């Protein structure tokens, strides 16, 4: 027969073990959410990045929030009903999970701004490698500048499908311009114009 002290010691060991395992998982999700918010605001303050709402971002943040909630619920018995993080405190102060989910959704909406480089930034880097500086400056930069202008115009009007369609059209235009530039360059090397 185990004494009461033995049982308590065992329980403490189990509790420490679980808390040790759960804490990093909770902090990962917390940092992910907090970090994404900080990184978003930092990058948005720079000019060559932009933020936009995306459903995928919203879903990802929502999933993170739900994971955090679940982890907190699991952590409650092992932490003597005093979880250390924001969600844990909410769980303790308000019992109804629906409130938590609402909070999670709100948080998800705040952190759903995805930060991206403007379209064509990567392609411009590639053209720097394959084409002369003059061709990049006179052909590809104006093309990508107009692409970005048209893309952002569509985003401002909240026409996301149009923005995607603009990108598709410009990817095609970019490919054509690449081919044509190489073709023209070939004839130039032959001395023909």
């Amino acid at each position, binding site marked *: 027969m185990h004494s009461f002290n033995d049982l308590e010691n065992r329980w403490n060991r189990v509790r420490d073990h679980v808390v040790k395992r759960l804490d990093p998982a909770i902090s990962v999700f917390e940092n992910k959410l907090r970090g994404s918010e900080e990184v978003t605001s930092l990058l948005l303050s720079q000019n060559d990045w932009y933020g936009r709402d995306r459903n995928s971002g919203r879903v990802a943040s929502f999933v993170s929030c739900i994971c955090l909630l679940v982890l907190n619920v699991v952590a409650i018995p092992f932490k003597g009903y005093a979880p250390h993080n924001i969600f844990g405190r909410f769980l303790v102060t308000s019992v109804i999970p629906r409130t938590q989910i609402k909070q999670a959704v709100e948080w998800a909406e705040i952190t759903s701004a995805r930060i991206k480089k403007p379209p064509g930034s990567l392609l*411009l880097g590639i053209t720097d490698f394959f084409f002369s500086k003059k061709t990049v400056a006179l052909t590809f930069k104006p093309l990508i500048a107009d692409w970005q202008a048209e893309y952002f115009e569509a985003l401002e009007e909240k026409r996301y499908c149009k923005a995607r369609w603009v990108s598709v059209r410009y990817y*095609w235009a970019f490919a054509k*311009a690449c081919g044509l530039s190489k073709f023209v360059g070939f004839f130039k090397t032959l001395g023909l114009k």
Partner: protein
Amino acid sequence: MVRKPKLPSVSQKEATILSVLLADPSREMYGLQILDESQGLLKRGTLYVTLQRMEEKKVLESKQEPRSRPEVGIPRRVYSITGLGALAFAQYKETHSRLSDLISVGATVAAS
């Protein structure tokens, strides 16, 4: 005898661009505006390569748009027609009308 300076040759696409720009020679236009005003005669894929070629022929000149405040994205390029461009376009139109006259004369001769 004073020889006329040789004007650069202009293709149909280039002539379309020049005609768009000549609608208001004082106006500077973006590539996208030229595209919109060409009424579907120009395509995105060929426009910018053609504009570069025209700039090399000196029928066009371009500069980066001035920006008063920092904005996202690369600054756009604005194009305007040069005097040489206007002359080249006039020559193109003249040649074009002469050719179409010749073709119509040829067609009537063939019909009779």
